[in-house]
């Protein structure tokens, strides 16, 4: 009796599986490891929103090669341990064809051994230069290298004949990577760092650091951090009457920064992806179309304009989409097609991957913007 029931159940199951396979092709599964909560949620949250938005859009437009796209998102909370666990789950249980994320460099470095061993392509949304240098077989990234942003700022400083600077960086992955690049590139631009200060991601008052910088011989201050720290710094600088020009990183290239810093943000200069100044770009700009589409769509879904960080996820998903359209969803095919991607007009820049270059961007990926009357303006 029992045997009978089991046999019939099994038959049913098999029938069901076969039937569903006939009715609709297996969805294409890609995984996403994003710091949706936790300290780096300023990265993971817009990235998640973007991925979800694109999933709907792509499926509404008929999917990829007629198959639906399924994005499986796990929150890593910015914690390397959790990222490792989630990566394992994506690869072993969810059998994804490719992974986007993680959001931070640390988490990315933690999951690289796993994807390399499993042979699953990973498109990181983090900026750390060591993610793709040296080039790893399965690892790509969409976020611009910090060094590119640093070079943009140093170029500008040189134009203004400034050669003594102070840096004030946040003590997390973002800040320490920026600090490293700022120190590394200074010499080649003939710049000396006369004051090297640090603040904590949850600090509420940075007057002490700024007073110290005020007393140094610095001619300009470069602050490397993400909201809300730099906004506090801008306000503290104004309070203390700091007169030297203030530069920030692309970490604050969102409207939120202007809102938080208020008047104190006037005149601050920072490198940014083109996304925040999309509508100001000349018609000839090759990225303009993608940028405007992304910004407007994001606004429609989430009531705020798409930002720089969400753009990393946009690029990652769309790069995958292109690769899968060309070569199918086998991990190895995706990897090969990613490496063959040329001239992809994304949000972060124009990507040209190759077997030697898995980052794919140049200094052009950044533009320099300044804040005037509470709005972004391109620095010529």
């Amino acid at each position, binding site marked *: 009796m029992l045997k009978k029931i089991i046999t019939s159940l099994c038959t049913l199951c098999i029938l069901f599986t076969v039937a569903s396979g006939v009715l609709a092709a297996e969805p294409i599964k890609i995984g996403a490891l994003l710091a949706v*909560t936790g*300290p780096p*949620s*300023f990265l993971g*949250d817009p990235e998640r929103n973007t991925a979800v938005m694109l999933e709907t859009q792509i499926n509404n437009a008929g999917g990829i090669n007629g198959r639906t796209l399924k994005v499986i998102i796990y929150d890593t909370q910015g914690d390397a341990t959790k990222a490792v666990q989630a990566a394992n789950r994506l690869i072993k249980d969810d059998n994804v064809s490719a992974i986007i994320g993680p959001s931070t460099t640390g988490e990315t470095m933690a999951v690289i051994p796993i994807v390399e061993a499993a042979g699953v392509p990973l498109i990181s949304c983090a900026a750390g230069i060591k993610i793709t240098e040296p080039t790893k077989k399965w690892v790509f990234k969409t976020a611009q290298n910090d060094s590119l942003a640093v070079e943009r700022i140093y170029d500008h400083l040189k134009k203004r004949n400034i050669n003594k600077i102070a840096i004030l960086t946040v*003590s997390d992955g973002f800040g320490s990577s920026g600090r490293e690049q700022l120190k590394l590139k200074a010499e080649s631009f003939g710049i000396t760092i006369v004051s090297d*200060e*640090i*603040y*904590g991601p*949850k600090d*509420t*008052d940075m*007057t*002490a*650091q700024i*007073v*110290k910088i*005020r*007393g140094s011989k610095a001619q300009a201050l470069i602050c490397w951090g993400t*909201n*809300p720290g730099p*906004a*506090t710094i801008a*306000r503290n600088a*104004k*309070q*203390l*009457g700091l007169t030297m020009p203030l530069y920030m990183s692309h970490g604050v290239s969102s409207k*939120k920064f202007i*809102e*938080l810093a*208020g*008047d104190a943000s006037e005149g601050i200069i920072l490198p940014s992806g083109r996304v925040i100044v999309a509508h100001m770009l000349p018609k000839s700009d090759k990225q303009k179309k993608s940028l405007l589409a992304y910004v407007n769509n994001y606004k429609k879904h989430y009531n705020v304009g798409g930002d720089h960080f969400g753009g990393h996820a946009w690029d990652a998903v769309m790069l995958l989409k292109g690769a899968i359209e060309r070569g199918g969803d086998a991990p190895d095919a995706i990897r090969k097609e990613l490496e063959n991607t040329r001239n992809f007009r994304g949000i972060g820049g124009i990507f040209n991957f190759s077997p030697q270059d898995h980052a794919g961007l140049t200094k052009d990926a950044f533009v320099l913007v300044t804040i005037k009357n509470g709005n972004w303006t391109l620095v010529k």
Partner: protein
Amino acid sequence: MDLSEDILQYILSGLSTGAIYAVIGLGFAIIYNSTSIINFAQGEFVMLGGMLTLFFHVTLFLSLPFSIFLAVLVATAVGALFERLAISPLKNADPLILVIITIGGSILIRGIAMLLWGKDTYVLPMFSGDEPIVLWGATLMPQNFWIFGITLIIIVANRLFFHHSIIGKAMRACSFNRVASSLVGINVKHTVLFSFAISSALGAAAGIIIAPLTMTSYDVGIMLGLKGFCAAIIGGMSGGIGTVAGGLIVGVLESLGAGLISSGYKDAIAFIILLLILFLRPQGLFVKGDTERV
């Protein structure tokens, strides 16, 4: 800019941050004295103060003073509710168990706040303008003076309440001896509820006065709570001036450490000095020494 002006700036900035730590620390001490619990959810009330004010003022367009009033009221209610639902049902549990419950409560409150208001950082308008005020070469914002003033009022009110009102005296009696207090007719249960309500109100007040300067988001509570905890410990978990002094010491040490020694190790410097203080005066800085050796 000479060094003495810089140092004055460090000290004034430090005092302002320290005043916040002091108010948060008072909240820790009040709950600790009535229940022996280290309330790890204390920081979340700081967050609630800022976020609720913002919600009432920016989202519901209420006037700032009224928003502040409502925010303190709601935060106090949340604190009282937390005590009723999670603390008071466990009458005789080990304090450690209750500590874990407060950890759970802190995660829960933070989670709800995140769901309600998202993960963004917000800024509350300054109470009275943002023109810096110069003081012997150091500059402060008008908000700093609000912080000093309100902290002072809180300290005085706290003192008056615990030394001159019947409920306050009863609460102090409970902290000395629970059994004896219940024998003389003090309702111990109510004093625990009161202590949670008062601490929540204090935390919320701290969160509100600091939000215009430092901005606020769903996760500001963790670090501020930790610093407030330090303040209370240095003050020997006293519900009074010791904790206030503890807060100011932590604030000034941080600021001087960042300015004069190393900003990267600023927190470490503050904690190393704290540890030294603890090693040299294991009873806290402001409690009279006892000769007991065991």
